[in-house]
């Protein structure tokens, strides 16, 4: 018990340990810790910033999407209108064409009817003359009555 020269030895050891700690232990450790704290703070700030940017991008995307939607709707409406126009136009053209064909057909029919009537008239005249010839084969002078027959054929 009691204090002896050990005390001096212990004091020297103590001072050496403190100096070592002060030079080689404390500064690197606290520096590393401070740097890490800073890096964590930076990281958190960056994350915050990133989140904000993300939020902004989201808003932008939403706006772009809305714009695209509006544009698409406009395009569809325009296409619908154009479609209607084309159909209407085609309808008009078709009706016109139809009536034109009808007209042509009518004209042709008319023409053919006339032609047929003409032919018929001529044949009736021939038949009439033939009939008359048979009935009046003696008395009737073909040449003398030709004028009268022609007049008759013209009246048919």
């Amino acid at each position, binding site marked *: 018990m009691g204090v*002896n020269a050990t005390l*001096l030895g212990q004091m020297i050891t103590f001072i050496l340990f403190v100096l070592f700690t002060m030079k080689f232990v404390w500064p690197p*450790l606290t520096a590393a810790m401070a740097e*890490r704290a800073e890096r964590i703070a930076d990281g958190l700030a960056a994350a915050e910033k990133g989140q904000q940017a993300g939020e902004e991008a989201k808003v932008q995307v939403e706006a772009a999407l809305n714009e695209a939607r509006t544009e698409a709707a406009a395009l569809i409406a325009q296409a619908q209108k154009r479609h209607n126009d084309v159909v209407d136009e085609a309808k008009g053209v078709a009706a016109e064409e139809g009536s034109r064909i009808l007209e042509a057909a009518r004209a042709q029919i008319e023409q053919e009817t006339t032609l047929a009537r003409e032919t018929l008239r001529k044949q009736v005249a021939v038949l009439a003359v033939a009939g008359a010839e048979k009935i009046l084969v003696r008395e009737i002078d073909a040449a003398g009555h030709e004028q009268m027959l022609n007049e008759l054929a013209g009246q048919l």
Partner: protein
Amino acid sequence: MIIAASSTAEYVNHHLTFLTSGEGVNALNLDTLFFSTLLGLLFIGVFGLAARRATSGVPGPLQNFVEVIVEFVDTSVKEGFQGPREFVAPLALTIFVWTFLWNLMDLVPVDLLPLAGQQMGLPYLRVVPSADMSATFALSISVFILILIYSVKGKGWGGFAKEMLYHPFGSFPLLIPANLLLNFVELLAKPLSLALRLFGNLYAGELIFILIALLPWWAQWVPGLGWAIYHILVITLQAFIFMTLTVVYLSLAYEKH
């Protein structure tokens, strides 16, 4: 009571005798010097390694462990000491860890190392440096010297002298002796209380462990376990108290009033 001893008193006495070299005041407690230096080397070895490998990136397990202690000490010093901390913080760390390791030796079974020492021809071996007054006073006297240095550094020679002479009763000439006496007592009480508190706690702890070791083997584990668990608190607390009071004393010394 594994170590052969003819009586209880002899056993206890044997456990409380230092391995010395030299006589009287000039004697050196070789066991205290050896174990405290060994523990100190363990401290600076582990912490130095962690410091050398310190990274601001993801810390490994060793660095994590060391950083927890450094952070703890740093916070304590920050709260207690307002001046520059380049010296005070490492000082506090050294005191805390070193004293803790000293105290930790108290949890080593009391007969283990003395018995091993006997096998190697060492007649006595005390393994708890903080149960040696020479060791605790070495710490507290170093702190006392630092208190004087920081008093002069913080207040200047004049300020320190003025405080010693005029504080706390006032500057009336007749009161100066009373001031001086009180201040001396106050100043000397600091290293005394620091050293004796640590020594007393650990000496008592060691003694209780020795007494428990005197019980029959089947009865040792209940009190031994209880005392050891309680001692985990005591050794940490005593290391912390020594560190905190050192910081507080230095802070009081450094402050201008």
